[in-house]
């Protein structure tokens, strides 16, 4: 039962140019330049503190870059801030649930988008069905298990029919079964034409879920490549070490040292639709 579709012009592609983000006098994101296109799945990997979450928050607009620019280049971006906000959704590492029922959590999100009551009901019903939460519809959201809460967060995001869905380590706290369920839902959302941009520290998940890999280290984007190419033959020495599961400050790979990713050298990324 698909009762809702996305309407209106697209806001993608998303482009970051020389983005820096500073907090407390430290540069946490450095010279970030990259772009994202329709209907690809990008997974951002890198060690803790690489700036993966910050990167997502910057892209999603929760944080403002200290310098550089983040632009939505699609036709829809002309329609203003609210339109851009409502074309995106984000799922956080720890799901944030309102102190209300499962249904009310989704209904609230939809009401912010200005959707009429009857339509809200249909959409809610449909996403709960698709995420396997229908039997929990009237339960208070915060007493659900971790896996169920994350599924609810995904259902809520799905209800928004985002053009771009950001996910910050969506399976970090979940067991394998719950992780599998979450990955299936993400795949299904991607199947409706949503661009997926997620972070992960699980290389297996990155291989399963990604079309493109972005490798971040200490706030820099060191490599941005299609998934097969990245795992077969990473160019950067730190990426090589990371893929081989080595401790990064211990044993670097043999590749070029610290060559930050420059989009010009990797233009094939965008052609592989």
């Amino acid at each position, binding site marked *: 039962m698909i009762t809702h579709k996305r309407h209106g012009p697209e806001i993608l592609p998303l482009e970051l140019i020389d983005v820096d983000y500073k907090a407390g006098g430290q540069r946490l994101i450095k010279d970030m330049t990259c772009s994202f296109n329709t209907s690809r799945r990008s997974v951002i990997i890198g060690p803790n503190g690489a700036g993966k979450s910050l990167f997502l928050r910057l892209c999603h607009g929760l944080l403002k870059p200290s310098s550089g620019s983040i632009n939505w280049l699609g036709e829809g971006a002309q329609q203003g801030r609210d339109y851009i906000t409502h074309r995106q959704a984000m799922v956080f590492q720890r799901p*944030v649930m*309102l102190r209300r029922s499962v249904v009310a959590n989704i209904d609230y999100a939809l009401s912010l988008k200005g959707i009429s009551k009857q339509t809200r009901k249909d959409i809610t019903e449909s996403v709960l069905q698709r995420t396997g939460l229908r039997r929990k519809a009237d339960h208070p959201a*915060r007493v659900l298990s971790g896996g169920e809460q994350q599924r609810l967060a995904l259902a809520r995001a799905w209800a928004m029919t985002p053009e771009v869905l950001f996910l910050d380590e969506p399976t970090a706290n979940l067991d394998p079964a719950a992780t599998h369920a979450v990955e299936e839902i993400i795949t299904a959302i991607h199947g409706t034409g949503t661009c997926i941009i997620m972070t992960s520290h699980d290389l297996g998940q990155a291989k399963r879920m990604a079309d493109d890999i972005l490798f971040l280290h200490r706030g820099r984007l060191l490599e941005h490549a299609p998934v097969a190419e990245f795992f077969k033959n990473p160019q950067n020495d730190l990426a090589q070490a990371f893929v081989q599961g080595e401790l990064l400050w211990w044993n670097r790979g043999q590749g070029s040292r610290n060559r930050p990713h420059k989009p010009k050298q990797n233009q094939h990324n965008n052609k592989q639709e």
Partner: protein
Amino acid sequence: MNDFSTAFGTAFSLMINLDSALVEIVGLSLHVSLTAVLFAALIGLPVGAAMALFRFPGRSIISVILSALMGLPPVVVGLFVYLLLSRAGPFGVLGLLFSPTAMIIAQTLLVTPIIAALTRQVIEDLWNEYEDQLRSLGAGPARALPTLLWDGRFSLITTILAGFGRASGEVGAVMIVGGNIDHVTRVMTTSIALEVSKGDLALALGLGIILIFLSIGVSGTAFLVRRMAEQRHG
């Protein structure tokens, strides 16, 4: 010693027989304090929430003033309202002094800072938890305000009960602006003060016991609300 036991006996018989003087006093007390708490909540909840959500010039000064007002002695508030409502004062023409309305005004002033300051804390904590998610869904602080008041409802009920506790227990403000006039502005706390000074312990004790039960009732309700919230929402 004998005096005390007689006084207790009389006090209980007053309560059990629903003595008309006692009922009248308790009724007026509840009327004044509940009305005051209602107004204080209507003002304090949105003000406290706004303090938590918006950044504006003078915010920290208001915050300090609110905290200071929380601990303000009731007699000072009483004096302040007295000056405003007295014949020579700016609102003297309304003729409100020594009426239940004056007592409601005084207690509202007394309770509003408490509700506002505690609300601010509750909403600030919730906003820390919700901010990213709500902004992501397209809700800025203004849209979040009613959302957070609703989601904080259990903690806020406790806050309002704390306000009621302060209102029903204070004697200084209602004494000054109400005047403790029999059948008009006499409430539990003022009559306890009067009866004790007259040496008539029975009525004072009866009212005192009712106040204790009221206080236990308030904290019991707060406890139940908190437990219900934990069970329902974790």
